[in-house]
């Protein structure tokens, strides 16, 4: 400190670089904390129940694959994952299309009833789902829509729409519309203009929406529990509850199940996250 006081200018510089180091350190620490839970779950999944009970943080004493063997032989997690994957992919695609169309129109056109419709959608984000489980089940069942492979698409799409429309609407509002107007003057039709000009411009927010909805759907529990009954239609989050028994939970085995079901999604995420970032950058260049 004494050295620094001698000269004010270097002190400021040093202070600045200390600040930079701290900023970097904070970010690194945060990033590490982001992957810590999965690291913990990963190594714990190799422990035995006894090992885990005796210490929940220690590393496993041996590479014990028993939990994974149990996960693959005693449960149908593979099937549940296929169900989850189907629900997730289809829901996300439908959400993207529907909310892009609606979000674009709500953002670009002023018409009577516009804000009514906008708020009508936004309201959907504020609804606590647990009270809707019974009425929704009754209603879907009366229409014969429960317990099909497509049953869960209904709530997933419908509950995914509000936030997606909101994000897309506000993003499109921030894109200058000269390009569209120019294209319109050149005789470009509504839908051509929509998909050829606006769609690429909205890529950043669309990928944001896709990734948000992907994991929202993948992890959804309550609807999946209530609306389908067949084992063949079960999804991963409900399937994972089967590792709990009445009075004790075999945590390491549960963690092996979590690992097994999360790993493909994690890989998918880390592969595509690069493209998502590129999408955002691309948006910056064009916007």
């Amino acid at each position, binding site marked *: 400190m004494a050295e620094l006081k001698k000269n004010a200018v270097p002190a400021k510089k040093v202070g600045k670089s200390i600040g*930079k180091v701290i*900023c*970097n350190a904070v*970010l690194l620490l945060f*990033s590490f904390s982001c*992957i810590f*839970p*999965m690291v*913990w*779950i990963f190594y714990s999944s190799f422990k035995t129940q006894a090992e885990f009970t005796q210490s929940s*943080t220690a590393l496993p004493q041996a590479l014990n694959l028993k939990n994974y063997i149990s996960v693959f032989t005693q449960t149908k997690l593979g099937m549940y994952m296929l169900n989850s994957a189907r629900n997730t992919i289809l829901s996300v695609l439908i959400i993207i*299309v*529907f909310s892009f*169309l*609606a979000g674009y*129109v709500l953002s670009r*056109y*002023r*018409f*009577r009833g516009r804000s009514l419709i906008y708020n009508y959608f*936004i309201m*959907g*984000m*504020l*609804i*606590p789902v*647990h*009270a*809707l489980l*019974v*009425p*929704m089940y009754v*209603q879907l069942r009366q229409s014969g829509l429960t317990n099909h492979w497509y049953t869960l698409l*209904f*709530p997933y799409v*419908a509950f995914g729409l*509000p*936030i997606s429309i*909101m994000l897309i609407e*506000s*993003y499109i*509002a*921030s*894109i200058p*519309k000269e390009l569209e107007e120019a294209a319109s003057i050149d005789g470009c039709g*509504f839908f051509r203009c929509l998909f050829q000009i606006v769609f690429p411009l909205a890529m*950043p927010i669309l990928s*944001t929406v896709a*990734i*948000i909805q992907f994991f929202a759907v993948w*992890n959804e529990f309550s609807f999946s529990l209530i609306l389908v009954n067949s084992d063949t239609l079960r999804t991963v*989050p409900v399937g994972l509850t089967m590792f709990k028994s009445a009075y004790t939970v075999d945590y390491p085995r549960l963690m092996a199940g979590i690992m097994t079901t999360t790993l493909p999604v*994690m890989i998918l995420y*880390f592969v595509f*996250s690069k493209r998502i*970032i590129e999408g*955002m950058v691309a*948006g*910056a260049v064009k*916007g």
Partner: protein
Amino acid sequence: MRKSTLKPKTRMAIIVCLLPALIIYTYVVILPIINAFNYSFYNWSGGPQAKYVGWKNYQILLKDTSFWHAFSNNIWIAVLCIAGQIGIAFVFSALLTSRFVRFKKLHRVVAYFPATISAVVVGFTWSFIFNYDYGLVNVILRALHLGNLAKPWLDNPNTIISVVSIPLIWQYIGYYMVIIMAAMTSIDPSIYEMAELDGATGVQKAVKITLPLIKGSIAVAVMLCIAGNMKIFDHIYVMTNGGPGTSSMVMALQVYKTTFIKNQFGYASAMSIGILVLSLGLVGISRLIITRPWRKESDY
């Protein structure tokens, strides 16, 4: 593009664009709400003999101190999360656009990762992190010879709301970073270049240029944050189950318990409608505070 100038063709297109979303949303979300609203006028335990009680459930709700206690917990969590999630997300996003930060791509990729994990897994992990004897927090404190600071974190009714907010904030920083960064990318980089020529510091750029330009997205983020926190459920359920006592009880958890443990479907429906109304009110207020100036003159 004023309404008077809308061509019939464009009108048709607007309808075509809105209808798919409107239909499925109305059928799956709104109709069950109408049904739930209907249930809320009955004293109904799930069987065939529901008893019509008029507005009585709502009268009880107004006087139900446990519900209002849960509501105040929700408000606290929302306030902490708006400050924590959006505040930290903004700072991190700004840092990630500055030159001196290393591993930007890594940070961007990893930061969102917690948001991809299910709330149940997050809650479960953090209850182990907060564990008194073996949890990470106390293990680190003891290793630093700060053992007297080690506490049973989830057992003090006075601080429980702040403690359970930490995992919530942590999990969704990345979520809001994505939204904020997506908005930042639409800012013309030449604005920053000009500001730099004028000698603006990083903080000045963030506060004076970035913040006003992405105000719209911030408003969206605040609304999302309020909406998300008004119906927060899984984290609390897994970490504390609303306890100790009811000190970390939140509204959605109370609806859940009223419905599925106490079998009071009618009252729980009234509670849900109450939550909806309260949330609408809060979002309305937040919108008044952060009006939407970004489209005052720009577009229309």
